[in-house]
């Protein structure tokens, strides 16, 4: 008898089969990242921040993420067996948010050494010629692991903005239908550009006057 379950139902079942492996991948990734950054964390100035967050993508978000990767953002129910959440690169993900920019660069340098075998996939700036909004890597600690993990390194201001913005704009929510207008998207891009400019200007000011860091913040 043919399987009459929808693509989404099959993926929901797969999600819970994959969950233990996703948890293991997340635990290992977070532990390795925190360990590598221990010295930096202990050396932070009072105004500096280094925040590590870890999450497993929720079931419906994972399915929607896979859907967006299909042609025209739709699953083909005739090809239901072809889809797998293990194709996602960020089912298990760690985000490192740092401030100021020199801590982002330092963090990136440190993590590059432990992510040497992973694939780099930076998130580009809104303006094509700009520096990336964030550094991103995906890979596996063991080649036979079923789950690909992601590590993202981003400035704290942009990282915190994304935590609010992504859930409001990218994740389907019936009460928010219609808010993803061009004006909202353009405003989002303007905010990202402004935050990135602030981080760059703050870094420039620190370079010019390294003893006045606390004054700059007032």
């Amino acid at each position, binding site marked *: 008898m043919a399987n009459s379950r929808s693509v989404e139902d099959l993926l929901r079942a797969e999600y819970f089969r994959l969950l233990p492996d996703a948890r293991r991948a997340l635990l290992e990734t977070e532990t390795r990242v925190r360990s590598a950054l221990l010295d930096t964390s202990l050396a932070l100035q009072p105004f500096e921040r280094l925040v590590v967050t870890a999450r497993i993508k929720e079931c419906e978000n994972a399915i929607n993420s896979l859907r*967006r990767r*299909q*042609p*025209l*953002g*739709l*699953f*083909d*129910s005739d090809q239901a067996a072809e889809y797998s959440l293990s194709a996602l690169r960020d089912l298990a993900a760690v985000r490192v948010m740092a401030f100021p920019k020199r801590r982002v660069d330092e963090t990136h340098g440190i993590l590059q050494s432990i992510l040497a075998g992973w694939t780099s996939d930076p998130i580009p700036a809104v303006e094509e010629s700009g520096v990336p909004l964030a550094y991103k890597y995906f890979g596996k600690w063991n080649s036979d692991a079923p789950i690909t993990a992601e590590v993202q390194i981003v400035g704290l201001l942009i990282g915190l903005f994304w935590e609010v913005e992504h859930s409001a704009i990218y994740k389907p929510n019936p009460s928010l239908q219609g808010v993803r207008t061009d004006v909202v998207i353009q405003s989002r891009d303007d905010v990202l550009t402004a935050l990135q400019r602030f981080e760059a200007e703050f870094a420039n000011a620190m370079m010019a006057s390294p003893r006045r860091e606390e004054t700059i913040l007032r």
Partner: protein
Amino acid sequence: MKAAKDPILRAAGYAYNFDRLAYYNRSAKKAFSVEWVEDHTDKELREELSKTNNSGEWLVYAEPQPSERVKREFLAEIGG
């Protein structure tokens, strides 16, 4: 992320569907996936936009090409 060629498509009368990641124009009966737009040059895009579609059927520019079932679902959604 939307295509950097957004102004070209807007000027040609194309609307953007955020969920389907595609631009479409009902009168021209054409749709372009964002991936296709990003993978082609401005010149190639303008050439495809300037072609008249006399087939009576929708032309969907996407790589890989979506199945007929997916196309039907997409067109039903955008009122094509």
